[in-house]
């Protein structure tokens, strides 16, 4: 399980949503449309997991996507899915590193 308050404190993280693999909404931090984000992330994780299975890449660990100004990282832990919106986009790598350290610390 992810600690939204901890993730929300990482520099560059503007909002975060916690959901599950089926797109269900669990919690949100500074995100007014948490249910919508959780639903979309559920679909995304399902499609990307299918692509990984087809390619034989193993379990899905993380998805990150970026545009000109903002980025988003979607991380998986068990049945939980956490999506964090990042601004500016160049903070993505730092947030990914912090997220990984956080998960390893709990592991």
């Amino acid at each position, binding site marked *: 399980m992810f600690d939204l308050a901890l993730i929300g404190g990482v520099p560059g993280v503007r909002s975060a949503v916690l959901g599950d693999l089926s797109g269900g909404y669990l919690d949100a931090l500074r995100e007014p449309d948490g249910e919508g984000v959780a639903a979309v992330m559920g679909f995304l994780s399902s499609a990307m997991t299918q692509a*990984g299975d087809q390619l034989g890449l193993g379990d*899905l*660990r993380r998805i990150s996507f970026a545009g000109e100004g903002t980025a988003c990282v979607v991380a998986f832990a068990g049945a939980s899915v956490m999506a964090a919106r990042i601004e500016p986009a160049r903070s993505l790598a730092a947030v990914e590193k912090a997220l990984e350290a956080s998960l390893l610390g709990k592991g």
Partner: protein
Amino acid sequence: MEAILQELLDLAGVGAAMVFDGTGRLAGHRGRAIYDRTLCEQVSGTLVKAIDSIQLQQADWDSVTAQFADGKLILRNLGSPGGRAHTLAVVADATLNSSFATVAIRVAANKVRKSIVEGGTPAPTAGAVPAAAPAGAPSASSPQLPGESKPALGSSGLSWSKVSSVGFSTIAVADPASSAFLTSCAKKLARHVGPIAKVYVEEAVRRVSPDAPFSVSIGGRLVQDLAGQIEDADDRAQFLASIEKV
């Protein structure tokens, strides 16, 4: 195109490189061993669904990296060279030098864009596997019943293009407020019907505003049309309630 993809395949750790359009049809492919064309066509169909989801969240996406236990999948948005959305995908294992690959993929993406514009996209092979339809989508080949308003995917022009200011590639909007309204509608609808929501919104816009750019002033008609796409009464009520907050 093939030569550009071969350059990517020559990178240490890269197993396959492919370019596909918004329907999942391969425009080019190079791959090692198991990553043959048939497999890549299946994967591109799946990736189109993933991209649709990403575009609901971030219409201006430029790059995607999916990290797996045994490798990674890197996608680069090529925009709509030649008028059709295209994506470059690279499949790699854990030995990939990410920093070097990032630069190589960026260079390759620029070359592929130029290649598509100059030479056009090659037609898909006769044996190409059709792109997989998003969950809940009607079959493109199935006849549409009278009164059934759900669009057929095959004729929907499914792609979110950077060319369009709203990410809806096949419709026109009157102003930024109207485009924001459409994006919001697609997100709300996606909770109930999935990423196909974007297609439903595009089709609904064509129905309620066939001859003029969509304006938020007719948003009420659009919302009622979209609500009609949701079969479950509770879901329909939830959708209408969520839109009222917009």
